[in-house]
């Protein structure tokens, strides 16, 4: 272990298996400085923008809000609040389309901007070292900070886990083609990122940090180099260009040679990783008290006339952002949120920018040709050669097509990071990742169904037991009543009263007469009520 640490200290870099080199196309958007969009128009803030339970809405329609004011209270598990991106009026709270590949609707709070962009009162922390870890974690949670790299896991939850750490890794790799949001942020805000890294180190209780940047971002590297001269605890690592070296697991492998155990977390092997954007947001939240209401978004692609990177308030509809960048869609234009490898296409432009939106890509069909028809797999194995997780993509594909879910789990489908390298190289143009995602969703659904079937079975059995018990109780009651009657009779006889037999006969006769009358009435009324309710017990509501 210590030898390995020495290796890491000595700037050693490892390699991960597979990987691809798609055209980078970063030059389209990396040249222009960051700029902001005016605060105007409608904003649509989805209540759930991170990986966890949504918060509870704490505003009403018609309410005036200021920028940075929380719109939801963090709920239970992994909850994070969302904040008003600008000052204005709440116009609607209801389902609307969100940034999700399904294009389905979810709870969204709509705000009409008043154009003033007044902020609510912010509470900066003058010296973060004065605050305890827990206090800082609460601040991060209240600021709504989730991982800005893509997964959107609540940052405070990630930091809350306390285990011995060797390194904090700041991920500035940004290996997806086209995207330059992190690149631009690093070029212009390296100091803030370093500051954020220090805060993260403090919270995590870790002593060393590594900032990883891919070799194709010389400007960002140059921005960091002078700053880090007086930060001996933070080291810069320049890693070779390869996709997907920015993936959490792959970057860990490159920097430390370690592997995150399957279904485990980096912290299990003494590491924790945050995106540069997250580091910036942490710094912003602590030093300036600003919640996460904006992020850098790359708008690029050949069908955007003014590609570049923008500070975009969360909740801004994509359409407004694109208009600002002067987009020229072609027929059947794909609008991709995220990069060309892992992003998803948007069904329309009302979808808002959210915490995990790092790029809006409008490629011309000449640069990213549309997918061709899927051809049969020829088992060439190109996919396994590039798979960074060392899976066997074609095997998974056969199994997924055959819906062999046990086989898929046995072949570790859930270790697939959906990087898309396999589909990128497939000569038969099989949308491999799509098959995996479908299978994963299906497996999750099956597990969910199984669990609910189990619950249903338990409830059914509980009910059966209850009914039996009630029946038994009823019989017991009848028996006791009968016994009591008999006893009473016996006593009466003993007491020398009337022969109770006569009374019984009379009662039977009465009952017979009543029944006959009832039957007659029932025939008249038509047998409306027969069958259904016969013999059922009554009154067993909960």
């Amino acid at each position, binding site marked *: 272990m210590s030898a390995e640490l020495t290796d890491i200290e000595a700037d050693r870099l490892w390699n991960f298996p597979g990987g691809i080199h798609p055209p980078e196309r970063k030059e389209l958007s990396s040249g222009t400085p960051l700029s902001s969009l005016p605060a105007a128009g409608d904003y649509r803030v989805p209540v759930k923008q991170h990986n966890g339970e949504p918060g509870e809405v704490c505003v009403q329609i018609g309410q005036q809000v200021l920028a940075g004011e929380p719109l939801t209270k963090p709920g239970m598990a992994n909850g994070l609040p969302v904040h008003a991106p600008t000052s204005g009026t709440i116009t609607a709270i209801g389902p609307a389309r969100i940034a999700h590949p399904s294009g389905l609707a979810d709870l969204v709070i709509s705000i009409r901007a008043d154009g003033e962009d007044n902020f609510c009162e912010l509470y900066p922390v003058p010296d973060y070292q004065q605050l305890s870890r827990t206090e800082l974690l609460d601040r991060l949670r209240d600021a709504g900070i989730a991982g800005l790299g893509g997964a959107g896991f609540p940052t405070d939850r990630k930091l809350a886990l306390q285990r011995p750490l060797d390194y904090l890794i700041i991920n500035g790799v940004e290996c997806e083609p086209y995207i330059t949001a992190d690149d631009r942020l690093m070029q212009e805000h390296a100091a803030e990122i370093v500051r954020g890294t220090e805060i993260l180190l403090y919270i995590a209780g870790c002593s060393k940090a590594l900032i990883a940047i891919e070799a194709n971002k010389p400007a960002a590297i140059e921005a960091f180099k002078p700053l880090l001269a007086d930060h001996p605890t933070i080291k810069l690592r320049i890693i070779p260009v390869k996709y997907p070296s920015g993936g959490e697991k792959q970057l860990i492998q490159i920097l430390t040679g370690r592997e995150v155990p399957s279904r485990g977390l980096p912290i299990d092997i003494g590491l924790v990783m945050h995106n540069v954007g997250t580091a910036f947001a942490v710094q912003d939240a602590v030093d300036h008290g600003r919640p996460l209401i904006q992020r850098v978004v790359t708008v690029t692609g050949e069908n955007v006339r003014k590609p570049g990177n923008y500070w975009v308030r969360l909740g801004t509809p994509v359409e407004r952002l694109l208009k600002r960048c002067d987009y020229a869609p072609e027929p059947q234009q794909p609008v991709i949120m995220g990069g060309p490898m892992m992003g998803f*296409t948007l069904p329309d432009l009302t979808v808002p920018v959210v915490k995990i939106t790092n790029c809006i890509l409008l490629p011309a069909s000449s640069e990213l040709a*549309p*997918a061709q028809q899927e051809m049969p797999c020829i088992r060439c*194995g190109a996919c396994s050669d590039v798979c960074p997780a060392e899976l*066997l993509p074609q095997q998974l594909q056969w199994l997924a097509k055959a819906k062999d879910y046990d086989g898929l789990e046995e072949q570790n489908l859930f*270790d697939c990071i*959906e990087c898309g390298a396999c589909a990128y190289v497939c000569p038969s143009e099989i949308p491999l*990742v799509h098959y995996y995602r479908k299978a994963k969703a299906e497996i999750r659904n099956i597990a969910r169904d199984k669990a609910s079937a189990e619950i249903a079975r338990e409830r059914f059995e509980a009910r059966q037991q209850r009914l039996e018990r009630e029946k038994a109780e009823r019989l017991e009651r009848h028996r006791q009543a009968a016994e009591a009657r008999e006893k009473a009779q016996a006593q009466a006889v003993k007491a020398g009263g009337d022969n109770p037999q006569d009374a019984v006969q009379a009662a039977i006769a009465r009952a017979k007469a009543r029944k006959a009358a009832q039957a007659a009435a029932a025939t008249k009324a038509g047998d409306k009520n027969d069958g259904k309710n016969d013999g059922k017990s009554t009154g067993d509501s909960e």
Partner: protein
Amino acid sequence: MTFKIAASPHTHQRRTTRQIMRLVYLALIPGVILQSVFFGWGVWFQLILALATAWLAEGLCMRLRGRPMWSAWRDHTAMVTAVLLAISIPALAPWWIIVIGTAFAVIVVKHVYGGVGQNLFNPAMAGYVVLLVSFPVQMTSWPAPTMLTEHSISVVDTINLIVSGYTSAGYNLEQLRTGIDGLTMATPLDSLRTDLGSQMTLAEATDKPIFTDFAGVGWQWINLAYLLGGLVLIKLRVISWHIPAGVLLGLGLPALLGAAFAPDQQIGPVLHLFSGATMLGAFFIATDPVTAATSNRGRLWFGLLIGALVYIIRTWGGYPDGVAFAVLLGNMMVPVIDKYTRPVVYGHRGHP
């Protein structure tokens, strides 16, 4: 306007199956040209017959299966099968040999199993084995290299031989195969097998006009040409080096040992590697992705197995060459190889 919905990744490296197959054709060219130099025009006629048969059979199968014919023709896989089979059989074999073989390869071995990507066995080699088992006479009647024959065979005679079995002058193949020394010409491996089988030493057995240079007239240069083509394919990353390396190692190593321990009775490594269908098999046949192992480690084992089987068949088996049988046996072992060479998935190392 409507937007386009698609699954990620949205970008794609444009190298299709069709392009890969085209590169395979190109890499075969030098070998095929040399083969036609040494064995005459027949090679080209066999190629034409094979391609035509494959084209028709592929179309027919797709038609019967209710699928678009163009999609099968476009990917060229059947054509590559046809080419490989055509250059594996004797150049002057009767026309129906290659037709039956190609049709069997495409219809039974490929389409009956479900078409492209579904076949268990290498179609070309399965077709070859069917022919070899069914028509051993025709399939072992290799003409002698042109420089060693008394009669040179014209284009017209070649066609006559392939179509009717006789040249215009009335010679049949058997007569034409009789070489300058009055003995029937056999391939170097066949001749060696016969001679070593009748207790000759290797030196005696190789004291024949077909053995010049290092591995027999014609065959050595053809093998070198296929080696060249194969190396180009590796360079272009059409195939990985694992399978060819495995085959050559699996064949060369036992041959080296055999030559070291019994130099008089065992064919040496050079002859093994540069005679028969060694290079064609190693670089073009065993590397057929559909029927080969999947992972790189598996590919190496797959190649080693095939190489060793070739050595075993050539040395102790019933046939002079064993590439086809070895490849089919290797194909059968692929599921087992794949099962035991599955790479350890990320995150499972040391965490069972």
